[in-house]
């Protein structure tokens, strides 16, 4: 009674019932399988094995556990990437012009993730300064202290702050809070400096959205000239209007529209006249 000694499992039919047979496989398992016309003592190579309900339930539970684990892994990965972006990826920049120029790269969470000097003094200021893991306000305070220590910043000096990011709200918040933070910090050290944000860009951006450029006129009657002069008294189009009043009211400056050919009826669009006190002060420094 020799058996095939190959690797394939063979089954010996031990008992038959109408719906199933009991098999003994060559690995020592007793199994129930479909009775496809077998008789006791038959040897078969393939069998349609029974699926016990408890095995089905166990398989279902295992599949569910695997699915839940996978979903948790995916959720963790997504959260991890988001957290990484929130903490470590630069979201915006803040330039501090003390005279040494310094540019901070800031993540969405407010951490400083990069710091460079934008000029020679700026490089000297940030050299050796460890900004790793520091909050933007803490880093700004320490840089201001360092500037005082290195005599770049003195009583009555000035710091210009310019934030840049895709979100206008973030820019506005960062500039406003940084300004008040630095003012408070330096006041604690009994140093009074003028801290300014850069309103020029914002004013221009805001007004760009609302300004309406009138169509250029071929002939300019005297009446219209008079009206135009009333609407835009600071316009350089009016030869009699001096530059000084324009500097006092920068809101009145009408910026050039990029699509325009420059012949907008407002004369030249250099924007210099709209420069407020920042420009002058910077020149002084």
């Amino acid at each position, binding site marked *: *009674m*020799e*058996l095939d*000694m190959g690797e394939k499992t*063979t089954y*010996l039919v*031990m*008992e038959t*019932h*109408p*719906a*199933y047979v*009991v*098999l*003994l496989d*060559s*690995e*020592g*398992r*007793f*199994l*129930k*399988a*479909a*009775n*496809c*016309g077998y008789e*006791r*003592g*038959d*040897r078969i190579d393939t069998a*349609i094995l*029974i*699926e*016990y*309900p408890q*095995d*089905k339930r166990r398989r279902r539970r295992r599949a569910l556990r695997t699915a839940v684990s996978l979903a948790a892994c995916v959720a963790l990965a997504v959260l991890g990437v988001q957290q990484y972006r929130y903490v470590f990826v630069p979201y915006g920049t803040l330039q501090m012009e003390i005279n040494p120029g310094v540019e901070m790269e800031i993540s969405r969470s407010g951490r400083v993730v990069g710091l460079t000097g934008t000029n020679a003094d700026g490089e000297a200021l940030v050299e050796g300064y460890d900004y790793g893991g520091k909050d933007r306000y803490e880093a700004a305070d320490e840089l201001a202290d360092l500037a005082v220590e290195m005599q770049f910043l003195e009583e009555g000096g000035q710091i210009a702050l310019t934030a840049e990011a895709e979100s206008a709200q973030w820019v506005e918040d960062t500039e406003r809070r940084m300004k008040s933070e630095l003012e408070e910090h330096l006041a604690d050290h009994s140093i009074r400096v003028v801290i300014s944000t850069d309103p020029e860009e914002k004013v221009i951006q805001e007004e760009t959205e609302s300004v309406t450029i009138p169509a250029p006129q071929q002939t300019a009657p005297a009446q219209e000239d008079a009206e135009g002069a009333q609407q835009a008294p600071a316009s350089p189009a009016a030869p009699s209007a001096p530059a000084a009043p324009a500097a006092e009211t920068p809101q009145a400056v009408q910026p050039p529209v990029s699509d325009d050919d420059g012949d907008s009826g407002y004369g030249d669009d250099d924007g210099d006249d709209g420069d407020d006190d920042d420009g002058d002060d910077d020149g002084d420094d």
Partner: protein
Amino acid sequence: MKEGHEIIDQVYAAKSDPDAADGLIRQYMGFIRAETAKFLNRPPAEGRDEEFSVAMLAFYESILGYEKGKGAFLSYSARGIRNRLIDHYRKERRHAHLSSLHEAVEDDAETLKIDMLEDSRNEIQALHDRSAVREEIDEFERKLLEFGISFPEVADNCPRQGRTLAACQRVLAAARRAPALLDELLGTGKLPVTALARASGVERKTMERHRKYLVAVLLAFTNGYEIIRGHLYHLSSSDGPGAADGPASEGSRENGA
């Protein structure tokens, strides 16, 4: 309503009693045939259509899996039969490119391909062998019944996880290395769990859980069951020193046979 209760009682009885299960299956053979016919779109040919055997197995699985909260038994089993037949159809589709030996040689011919094959076997020898196998299985069944165990119970008690099966095989190997343990099993009619646990290193709890299966396998390696033992060549070859034809096994075989 009364009929509904009756069938539920029958199903619950059939869960643990193989004879009751056979009776219930015979009683609902028409229902099983009808469900198979619905799937095949033709009446199944008994003995020819594997689907009918699968449907009967599915009905038996429904008996084992049914609980009162799962609605009417017949609709539950109809769903089970249909799902099982769909699974079977999907598995069989993988072999769709193979031709069957049970196909007719030509269209409309009654002769099957299998009938045309030359049979090289010695029919008389095969008949003699089958008869010997049956006799040995009958003897094995009688011996098992002395322990109060039937084949379906052994099958239900057989470990289905590879790790547990390996543990049971370690118990068998330990018993074959110490034939006194097999003698103790035959003499007392009880599985020597403590001694086997000590000899094999398998936990008592695992052995208790699969006691019926272990009794059956150990009995197969006691005495006289040469054909069954020959069938279990995987176990015989992997047990090392105490192999099936080793002196210890031989001795115990001679004792009991």
